[in-house]
């Protein structure tokens, strides 16, 4: 119990450490900068220093946070929606559709996320849209697997059969009687995927196929900081620390939620 309480305290502390500077940074402009201010070390006027174009690093980190977390939430919502719907419908309809979905899931999960994003970038170019589609295109599989397996077992339960006998339509059955029982299974996975998505968006930004500059994206900022690593290490370290903290926060949340899932007697994703 005490370790649990310590875990919650740690999570709250991490959230505060992360969010307070970001709230402060949001009050500054992330794109405007004066060249005479370029590569200033952290100090009074610029809490985390400035980059090669004289832009405020804290302001860029703060606005980059909104961008990264917004896109990540979008990816998670899309994966969750598509994956859950496909998994439920496949289990309800069964037969050929179910086998086709299983094949699609196996093929999709065999492709590295980063490589899928690179493939899509060939056609659509870099940018927010490509990024969201690419990450959601690989992210839905886990939800579909869980939803499919859980729907298969729920179908055999009395209350679902009773609803079926009472003349409930298939879609209404899934929505009203199956979906509410699936939702508690996803808490840990949602937080876990959020953490991974933040990392992947930053990694793709670093590779140059994600969000394009001058938009303040954390991975792109770190890539831009590389030539100045020896002279201005804070440029790479500051966004790196925030990226690390945000991911650690999402993962500790995932662990707390996942523990509840285990307590309910449900096993591995």
């Amino acid at each position, binding site marked *: 119990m005490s370790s649990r309480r310590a875990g919650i305290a740690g999570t709250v502390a991490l959230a505060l450490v992360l969010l307070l500077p970001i709230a402060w940074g949001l009050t500054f402009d992330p794109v405007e900068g004066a060249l005479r201010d370029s590569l200033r070390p952290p100090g009074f006027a610029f809490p985390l220093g400035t980059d090669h174009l004289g832009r405020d690093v804290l302001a860029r980190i703060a606005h980059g946070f909104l961008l990264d977390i917004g896109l990540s939430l979008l990816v998670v919502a899309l994966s969750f929606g598509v994956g859950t719907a496909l998994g439920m419908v496949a289990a309800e309809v069964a037969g050929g559709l179910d086998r086709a979905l299983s*094949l699609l899931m196996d093929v999709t999960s065999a492709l*590295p996320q980063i490589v899928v994003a690179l*493939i899509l970038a*060939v056609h659509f170019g870099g940018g927010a849209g490509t990024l969201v589609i690419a990450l959601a295109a690989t992210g839905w599989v886990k939800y579909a697997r869980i939803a499919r397996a859980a729907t298969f077992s729920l179908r055999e339960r009395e209350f679902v059969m009773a609803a079926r006998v009472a003349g409930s339509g298939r879609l209404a059955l899934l929505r009203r009687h199956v979906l509410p029982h699936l939702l508690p299974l996803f808490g840990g996975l949602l937080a876990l995927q959020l953490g991974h998505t933040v990392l992947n968006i930053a990694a793709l930004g670093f590779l140059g196929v994600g969000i394009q500059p001058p938009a303040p994206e954390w991975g792109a900022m770190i890539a831009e900081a590389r030539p100045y690593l020896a002279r201005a290490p804070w440029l790479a370290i500051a966004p790196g620390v925030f990226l*690390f903290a945000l991911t650690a926060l999402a993962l500790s949340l995932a662990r707390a939620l996942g523990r509840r899932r285990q307590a309910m007697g449900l096993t591995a994703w």
Partner: protein
Amino acid sequence: MTPYLLRRCLLAGATVVAATFLTFLLLRLAPGEPAQTILARIFLRDLTATVSAGDAAALAERYGLSAPLLVQYGRWLAAALGGDLGVSIRSGRPVLTELGWRLPVTLLLALLAMALALVLTLALVTARRMLRRPLADRGFALIVTACVSLPGFVLGLVMILVFSLSLDWLPVSGTGGWSHWVLPVIVLALGQLGFTAVLLDDALEEALAAAHIVSARARGLSERCLLLVHALPNALVPLVPYLALQFAFLVGGVVVVERLFALPGLGSYLAEALDARDGPAFLGAVAVVALAVALANLAADLLVAALDPRIRLARSEA
């Protein structure tokens, strides 16, 4: 056993075909006539130059670019099966030759990183179990969370900063002696460590709960013997399929690490081909990556079936 084996082989093939077909479609449907792009890029070295329609048509005819897309893909697949992945638009060399130069770098990097990650995982998990103190549990949780949350390119930059720029012990990037491999391998291995450590720890938890452990403990065997001789071998079996899934993740890490340390491997080849809009080179690299991941999954399935008779029986009945 045989139908199961056949199904897994078909799945591996389907994965490679799906990946390359998707890439092929996206490459061909991308804006810009391929024949015009080739002419403008190779002969005029200027993407904005206009090329006469006649020249473009002649080239399209010669390389079969006017055929339906499905036929074109069929031709590519047939040639690829015969070992011909086409010619790189950028360099004019056969893609297979170029991949042959790049592949050893990536293989060495991936194998060293995987080996290091496995050694560290075994050390970390057994240390945690043998110490059996609350502090060991906390330390384990801390290390695992740090490894999972710290992206490779951030860790890599920090290590470059410390070991290359400040201490001047190791080179910043490129290839050469063994010292060029130290940082990339460590960065890639630490990226894997978090996941593999959690997986092995979970598997060990399950293995330690088995009835034969209780009976061995009742016979008076030491806890160390229980852990290392009776529980660990069983815990390694469920780890195998996860390691194969992990391989796809490793490939993603390889792309980032090769870019970061300027290593001339498969990952940087993929990124360079994308930057240069070099279709055949990109498609060839995707094919190799998809094939590697599919083979890793296949090998894991077969290995698990060979190691664990329960799975072999269950799946041949299903």
